[in-house]
């Protein structure tokens, strides 16, 4: 390869591996049979000639040159079995990389050569187009409907509060009952003894009414009340 050609191609390389691949291609068609040592020498010669022409070389070309110079000397020196890494291994790895880049370069070319849409084959120029019309499918459950009506009714109907009937003893009934019973007794009697036999609820009502009745009768001077201490049993006796 002449210096002139190398100079001409300088801007064309896409990095050291690209340059190496081009040099390798110049050697043989089958990359598996190239001579790595010859390739290294070609590369170093290229870099030297570029330097001689005072061309600016990107740093990665120089890094590759240094690495290849090392590889070259390692390959040429008598083999040291303990040398790490093994120069043959390095050379083989370089060759594998070149093969892979070459394979992708060819694949790219074959891809570009295919019948490409918009260049070789064409889709319809003026398709009518497909349209999707979205339509709402309204959903509601019968429960929602009924519950909604209940809600409206609750909101708008006149509100009616009803208190359930309770079993109670009115104050009048208690006055009458206590007046009669107290007259029949001679001694002090606890207020509970004036309550009717009844359920708990009615007894509580009767107790409250009878207590108020006892206070009223005492105020009228008809009975006496006696209690030893607060919350102690309350006794009633007709006033003599």
């Amino acid at each position, binding site marked *: 390869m002449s210096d002139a050609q190398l100079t001409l191609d300088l801007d064309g390389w896409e990095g050291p591996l690209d340059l190496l691949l081009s040099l390798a291609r110049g050697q043989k068609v089958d990359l598996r049979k190239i001579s790595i040592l010859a390739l290294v020498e070609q590369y170093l010669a290229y870099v030297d000639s570029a330097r001689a022409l005072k061309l600016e070389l990107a740093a990665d070309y120089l890094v590759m040159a240094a690495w290849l110079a090392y590889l070259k000397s390692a390959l040429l020196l008598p083999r040291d079995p303990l040398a790490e890494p093994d120069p043959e291994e390095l050379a083989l790895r370089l060759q594998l990389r070149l093969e892979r880049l070459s394979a992708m370069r060819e694949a790219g070319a074959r891809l570009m050569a295919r019948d490409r849409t918009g260049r070789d084959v*064409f*889709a*319809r*120029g*003026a398709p*009518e*187009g*497909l*349209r*999707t*019309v*979205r*339509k*709402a*499918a*309204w*959903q*509601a*459950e*019968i429960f*929602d*409907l*009924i*519950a*909604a*009506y*209940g*809600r*409206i*009714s*609750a*909101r*708008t*109907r006149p*509100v*009616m*509060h*009803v208190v*359930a009937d309770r079993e109670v003893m009115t104050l009048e009934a208690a006055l009458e009952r206590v007046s009669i019973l107290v007259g029949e007794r001679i001694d002090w009697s606890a207020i509970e003894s004036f309550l009717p036999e009844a359920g708990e*609820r009615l007894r509580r009502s009767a107790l409250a009414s009878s207590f108020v009745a006892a206070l009223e009768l005492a105020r009228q001077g008809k009975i006496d009340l006696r209690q030893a201490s607060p919350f102690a049993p309350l006794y009633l006796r007709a006033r003599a």
Partner: protein
Amino acid sequence: MPPDDFVRAVEAVLFAAETPLTIDAIRAHVGAGDVRAALDRLAADYAGRGIGIVRRGDRWQFQTAADMAHMLRRDREEPRKLSRAGIETLAIIAYHEPVTRAEIEAIRGVQISKGTLDVLMEAGWVKPSGRREVPGRPLMFATSPEFLFHFGLASRRHLPGIDDLRAAGLLDPVDLAFDRLEDSEDGGGMAQSLALRRDEP
């Protein structure tokens, strides 16, 4: 007989064209040959297919067969839940039909937007049902057979009545909840419903 390359070229050019083409425009692509004969041949080839070649004035183009036009449009249903205003309005119409908009608003106690009735009509559940013979002759609304079908009702009479709503705890839920609390104190469930029945006029 399969089409020759000239016919195929006319076919491809017409297909890829962005506008209908005159015979001259086609010839500019395919070169010398009887373009008109090729177009006639193509028109015959495509007769009875889902697409065809048509002539518009002095221009030619491919287009889909007229009877397939409806396939190009697709209706897609998207489930959507009715709004609270929508379901309440529907419930009022169902329970009181036929009913005017003003009546619906009076029952609901809230104004209804135009869109609410539109949605119910779009859903096919509500339809206009004559006019009320009062000043202004307002439109009345009623439910449709689709309404019964959608909600699985044999007839409107199968809608639960006020009593049923009460029994189901769907009426006046605040008071009911309070009564239920009182009730549970003496362990009897019946007092509540007895008390409620006494409410009724």
